[in-house]
């Protein structure tokens, strides 16, 4: 039995059963998207732009089409023209015209790797050969690679039709949106400050780094229906987006989600799926497309690089009084960076009475960005949490105490205005402060310790669930949420808890879009919260039906039957308590099969906070940073399967450390990506990291039947700033640019030591 913070005692929830999909995954039987093969299947390959910015004057496919084995070639001329405005497609607000133009370029290529044409052939090799025979005539344009360059007067314009409200309808621009948040009196706030720290930060564009590349198999039937097998975080999103791009009725598409080898936000949108369907429609054969690693890095959706200027002021006793932020995020080729989220998260953990935040979404000649774990929040926290650390130092305060003193709690106004409900930010800082790690001594030269915190909203959205009871008293659980990070196990545990079964008595099944009610993406840290809620209600529905069956057997009214601790009981003589298993064998004689069902449009989502503690050692000769020890504390509301909550906390921390120290998209002067493989795009491996220690905080989300908060994202927010703060305490250098790679850190250390400019320049890029 496990007790929760809200006093509820659980039998299954809070335990650590072996995951239901474990055997298939460790034996290689689990089927991923690229594992799907069908008779007569063709193979697709995509022709991609060798230029970062160019007009397409013509595309000639005659020679490629004549190559034996080539069955079809498609360009954007074969896709329908779509509306150039934001539309609600499924759960996503999408500009369909831009989505389509990202899938196949229309008249213009906007980044190195932008898709231009796609070939279906009898083998991947023939398809690749055909790509070499497609002739594209380009008019090369100057690439615009940074937000600073894109915002300069006279900058080359990426999207001729792009306008923003402030510059007006006649002004071409690369600035898609300006968002502003304002509260209190900024001037008065800074006047009241005894300490003010202002710095400018830059963060590099980074990729989610999921190991499994994008893939899709499309099968178009003569009756106008299509089936897609693919790796995605949201089968219903793939269905609605593909239907929109192809102009097909949504109900004519079935999406079968394969097992997924990582997504982290990068598999919420579509790239290959409509191409697979359209090629299948054209050829009459199933068509499979898979990206190479280079294609993933060049042409899927990394997250934004950014420039953030952050100015914070506090009184001498450490009370934050004012914040001013200017931030611009790279959207990539089309609008839609997470700068709005960056603006709303940057000082979200704190109660600051006076603030002004200006945020700009800027198009540049890089891939259209996609979501990445708490999108926009890590960039922002790198700035604010570094400045917070400096302010704590200036006040002579412990960094945890500074955060606790200024920490947001229930009733504190969020950046955008609405007050927080019950949240657990301060509890995460207290967990760090009380951790064995924080209480340990860190000794030795060039070693330092850093703390940082982070916030993420989490989302609710729609989910569906079905619980089918079997005659042996076990159950199957049908959900539409793709399993990332232990979804099946956690959902089965919730059903088992309600039904009084063991976790292994419930078999979870992730199904296709025809077989379950609408279910939004596995993303936004919503799955355990919202799908978990649907599963809870579906299991309760099954219990309600079981009560009716028990009542029939006992000749009672259903409301006279009670259910607790896995047993049905009723008052009166001759009533022998029964379990679900007892009743399950008698379903046929008491009314037939039982399926519990539920759908939710989940409200009352509980936001997430995390705090991270890092010890580092810096090599004074090379600038290489070694992570000696790391601890993360995170509010999970209620941890259903603690191992998978810890896994999310550790995974986000590992990604955040990679973002901090090594990862970056490295483009040359022509805007060509130079690190298109994982040897050069340097993600941390297990050899680079210590075991990341975890502390699960449980402050239940009010209103949720189990108190769950999403846990999938927020742990990636604090690490870059925590590492930067640790480096500052190790070697006295405040780093303001990510990644804090050896050459960049060495350059900063040499500058501090008074080394010659030539030495510093030689060390840094």
């Amino acid at each position, binding site marked *: 039995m496990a007790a929760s913070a809200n006093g509820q005692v659980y039998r299954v929830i809070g335990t650590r059963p072996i995951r239901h999909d474990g055997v298939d995954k460790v034996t290689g039987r689990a089927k991923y998207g690229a594992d799907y093969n069908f008779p007569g299947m063709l193979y697709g390959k995509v022709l991609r732009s060798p230029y970062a910015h160019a007009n397409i004057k013509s595309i000639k496919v005659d020679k490629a089409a004549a190559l034996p084995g080539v069955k079809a070639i498609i360009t954007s001329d074969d896709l329908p023209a779509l509306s150039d405005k934001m539309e609600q497609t499924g759960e996503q607000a999408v500009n369909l015209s831009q989505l389509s133009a990202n899938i196949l370029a229309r008249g213009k290529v906007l980044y190195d790797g932008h898709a231009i044409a796609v070939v279906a052939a009898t083998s991947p090799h023939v398809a690749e050969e055909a790509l070499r025979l497609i002739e594209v005539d380009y008019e090369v344009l100057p690439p615009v690679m940074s937000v600073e360059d894109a915002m300069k007067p006279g900058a080359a314009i990426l999207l001729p039709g792009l306008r923003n409200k402030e510059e007006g309808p006649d002004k071409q621009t690369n600035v898609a949106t300006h968002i502003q948040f304002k509260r209190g009196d900024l001037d008065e706030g800074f006047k009241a400050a005894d300490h003010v720290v202002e710095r400018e930060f830059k963060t590099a564009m980074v990729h989610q780094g999921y190991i499994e590349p994008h893939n899709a198999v499309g099968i178009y039937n003569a009756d106008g229906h299509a089936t897609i097998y693919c790796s995605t975080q949201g089968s219903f999103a793939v269905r609605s987006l593909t239907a929109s791009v192809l102009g097909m009725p949504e109900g004519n598409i079935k999406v079968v989600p394969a097992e997924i080898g990582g997504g982290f936000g990068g598999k919420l949108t579509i790239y290959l799926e409509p191409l697979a369907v359209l090629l299948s429609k054209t050829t009459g054969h199933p068509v499979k497309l898979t990206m190479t690693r280079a294609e993933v890095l060049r042409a899927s959706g990394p997250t934004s690089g950014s420039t953030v200027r952050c100015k914070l002021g506090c009184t001498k006793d450490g009370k934050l009084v004012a914040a001013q932020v200017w931030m611009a995020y790279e959207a990539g080729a089309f609008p839609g960076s997470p700068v709005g*989220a960056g603006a709303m998260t940057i000082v979200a953990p704190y109660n600051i009475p006076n603030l002004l935040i200006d945020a700009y979404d800027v198009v540049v000649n890089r891939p259209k960005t996609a979501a990445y774990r708490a999108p926009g929040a890590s960039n922002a926290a790198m700035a604010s949490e570094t400045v917070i650390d400096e302010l704590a130092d200036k006040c002579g305060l412990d960094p945890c105490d500074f955060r606790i003193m200024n920490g947001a709690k229930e009733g504190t106004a969020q950046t955008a205005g609405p007050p927080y409900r019950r949240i657990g930010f301060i509890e995460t800082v207290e967990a760090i402060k009380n951790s064995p790690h924080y209480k340990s001594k860190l000794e030795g030269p060039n070693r330092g310790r850093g703390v940082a915190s982070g916030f993420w909203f989490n989302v609710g959205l729609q989910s569906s669930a079905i619980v089918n009871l079997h005659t042996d008293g076990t159950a199957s659980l049908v959900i539409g949420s793709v399993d990332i990070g232990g979804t099946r196990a956690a959902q089965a545990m919730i059903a088992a808890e309600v039904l009084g079964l063991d976790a292994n008595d419930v078999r979870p099944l992730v199904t296709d879009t025809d077989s379950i009610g609408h279910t939004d993406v596995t993303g936004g840290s919503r799955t355990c919260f919202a799908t978990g809620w649907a599963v809870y209600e579906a299991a309760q529905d099954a219990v309600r039906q079981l009560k009716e069956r028990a009542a029939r057997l006992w000749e009672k009214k259903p409301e006279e039957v009670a259910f607790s601790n896995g047993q049905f009981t009723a008052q009166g003589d001759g009533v022998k308590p029964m379990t679900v298993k007892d009743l399950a064998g008698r379903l046929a004689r008491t009314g037939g099969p039982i399926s519990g069902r539920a759908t939710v449009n989940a409200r009352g989502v509980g936001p997430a906070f995390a705090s991270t503690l890092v010890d580092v050692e810096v090599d004074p000769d090379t600038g290489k940073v070694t992570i000696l020890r790391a601890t993360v504390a995170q509010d999970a509301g209620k941890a259903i399967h603690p191992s998978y909550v810890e896994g999310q906390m550790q995974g986000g921390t590992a990604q955040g450390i990679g973002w901090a120290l090594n990862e970056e998209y490295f483009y040359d002067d022509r805007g060509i990506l130079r690190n298109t493989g994982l040897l050069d795009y340097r993600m941390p491996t297990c050899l680079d990291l210590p075991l990341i220690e975890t502390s699960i905080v449980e402050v239940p989300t009010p209103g949720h039947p189990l108190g769950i908060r999403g846990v999938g994202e927020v742990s990636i927010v604090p690490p870059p700033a925590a590492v930067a703060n640790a480096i500052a305490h190790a070697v006295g250098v405040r780093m303001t640019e990510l990644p804090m790679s050896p050459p960049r850190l060495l350059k900063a250390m040499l500058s501090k030591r008074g080394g010659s400019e030539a030495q510093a320049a030689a060390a840094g890029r």
Partner: protein
Amino acid sequence: MATIVIPAQLRKLTGGLDRVKASGRTIGRLIDDLERQFPGIGDQLLQDGDVKPSIAVSVDGEMGTGGVLEPVGEDSEVFFLPALGGG
């Protein structure tokens, strides 16, 4: 009447006011009343008869799911925010 907190960039339509009062039992009716008081604001909030996909609505601290049909209480506090997605 409900209190509506006006986003910074729409305050030019409300003469600089950051908080205004409006009546209506749903977000749609509330926006109708706002439009009567501050012409042009409806276009900033609505698209094809519903709340713009790029905008989220918070009513009494809770994110709404009903768009223009989202219920509003007599003393509710309403915020219009940028819509967000997660990863």
